[in-house]
């Protein structure tokens, strides 16, 4: 078990290192001129040259990358020109070209909104998705199952923004049950927070539910075809007990593992939902950064999201091993 955990952590670190190198190379080295972007439209060549010197862009690529890594772990000082020194704290991702804010601080500021969205969606897909999957496994062959199959099939393929747009149109524009959502931080007004998050939660949660319904149903039905189910049938155990006690057990590990992965992805990856509902989370930060080519912000968000995803993957594997003891032992 220890060996398994260590191996998994080592793998995650490797992925992160590979990611940081790739992203750094792509964004700082490949095309365009970061110094010009950082300096802004109205800089003259002399100013650009100065900025280039400050950012260390004249150093060899490897040195630049190592300095970037060093900044991540120990912090880093930029010379602001005229003897001015700008200090950038420990997980240093540089300063935004737009407003000179520290990127790390900006990301931390945006994280709560993303977390609010992901947590609510998690609750919904665990309840709705897994519930639907179980129901259709219990009602195999009946009209209920057929209906649920059609619904989940339709749900699996629908892009999340279509669902969100339609909900917005129906609930806010026509029925006017809810105002158009605007993000209110939880600390400011919990009630308003919940009301405004309701539609994004439903959108993302229901969208993800289709996948979980399919997964739960297929794992359960797969288990039902296994030999040990035959044993319990042959000993007079009722069909309901077989499904709820034995068959469902096979779905637990995959559902937990996939939830961990999806939750991690969502910490950064709910770009579409955040963008549609104007939630100021990490995903929206990324899109805004891309629009104005704010490279430090883009690199920072990508690394943060990558970290979340990789950690979630590692956690998922560990949870899977715990839920399905056969994996770690074989």
């Amino acid at each position: 078990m220890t060996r398994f955990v260590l191996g998994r952590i080592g793998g995650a670190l490797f992925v992160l290192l590979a990611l940081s190198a790739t992203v750094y190379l792509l964004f700082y080295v490949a095309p365009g001129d970061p110094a010009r972007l950082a300096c802004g439209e109205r800089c003259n060549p002399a100013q650009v040259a100065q900025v280039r010197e400050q950012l260390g862009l004249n150093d060899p690529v490897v040195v630049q990358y190592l300095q970037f890594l060093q900044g991540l772990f120990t912090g880093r000082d930029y010379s602001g020109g005229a003897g001015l020194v700008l200090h950038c704290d420990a997980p240093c991702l540089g300063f935004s070209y737009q407003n000179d804010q520290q990127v790390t601080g900006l990301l931390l500021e945006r994280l709560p909104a993303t977390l609010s969205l992901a947590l609510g969606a998690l609750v919904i897909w665990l309840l709705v998705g897994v519930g639907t999957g179980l129901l259709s496994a219990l009602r195999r062959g009946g009209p209920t199952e057929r209906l649920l199959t059609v619904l989940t099939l339709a749900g699996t393929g629908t892009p999340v923004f279509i669902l969100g747009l339609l909900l917005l149109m129906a609930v806010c524009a026509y029925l006017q049950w809810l105002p158009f959502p605007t993000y209110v931080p939880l600390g400011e007004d919990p009630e308003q927070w919940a009301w405004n998050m309701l539609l994004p939660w439903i959108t993302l949660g229901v969208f993800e539910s289709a996948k979980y319904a399919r997964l739960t149903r297929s794992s359960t039905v797969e288990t039902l075809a296994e030999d040990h189910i035959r044993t319990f049938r042959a000993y007079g155990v009722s069909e309901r007990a077989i499904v709820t006690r034995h068959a469902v057990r096979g779905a637990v590990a995959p559902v937990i593992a996939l939830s961990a992965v999806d939750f991690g992805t969502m910490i950064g990856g709910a770009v579409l939902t955040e963008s549609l509902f104007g939630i100021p989370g990490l995903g929206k930060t990324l899109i805004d950064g891309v629009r104005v080519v704010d490279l430090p912000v883009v690199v920072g968000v990508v690394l943060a999201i990558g970290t979340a995803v990789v950690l979630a993957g590692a956690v998922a594997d560990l949870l899977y091993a715990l839920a399905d003891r056969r994996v770690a032992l074989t």
Partner: protein
Amino acid sequence: MDSARGGVPLGSLGGISADHWLGVEPGTGRDLFVRLLYGARISLLVALGATAVQILVGVAAGLAAALGNRFAGQLIGRLTDVMIALPMLVLGIALTAVVPADFPRTLLLILVIGLLSWGGTARMVRAQTQALQGLDFVAAARLSGNGTLRIARRELLPSLAAPVITYAAIQVPANIVAEASLSFLGVGVKPPTPSWGQMLSSAQTWFRADPLYVLLPAGLLFVTVLASTVLGDAVRTALDPREGSRLRIGTGKEAAA
């Protein structure tokens, strides 16, 4: 076009008329029907192109990982894991930020989606190849004195065809969604080139005044994705070895059986 109200189409249902069967686009007055048709072309072109890229790269990487020496296998395997772990959408968005503006967007989307999502194909091909290599008929081919390449060509590739085709069929709807998502976020194809996702993006601001402008591309996207999902499922069923009685692939002798 009612310029006083900011460009809302005149007439009912977004300006449906004999000239404009499905009305016109708010703001610009372009014919919606024509844009939907051209949008379909872009969406499908990107989806199929990206699928082709990802399958080609994935099969090559998977085969190399399974057949290469230990070092190459480990390296490609690790790389595959990295590709699978990373969120394609996020990296795709970020990449569009650094690519020069004059790079053709359609080609860019094909490359971004295709090159960021070959990991799944590679992992599947590697696993399948390794499983096949454990089978006795491959051992028999080795004993007969066949080299690695000859075994790959004669014994492995034909058996890989079915799972790869299945995987490709399932990837098409996913890539349609990926293109639509990128375009919806404004980092995909740029107007005036239409794509369904990009149309939905511009429609966001109009859905109170012109609901059809939202509903039409949304409906088409939904139906297309659903149809290709169902098609992918059908392909999987048809090529599933456990359903061998329905369709025997590659034997060519069913009539004699």
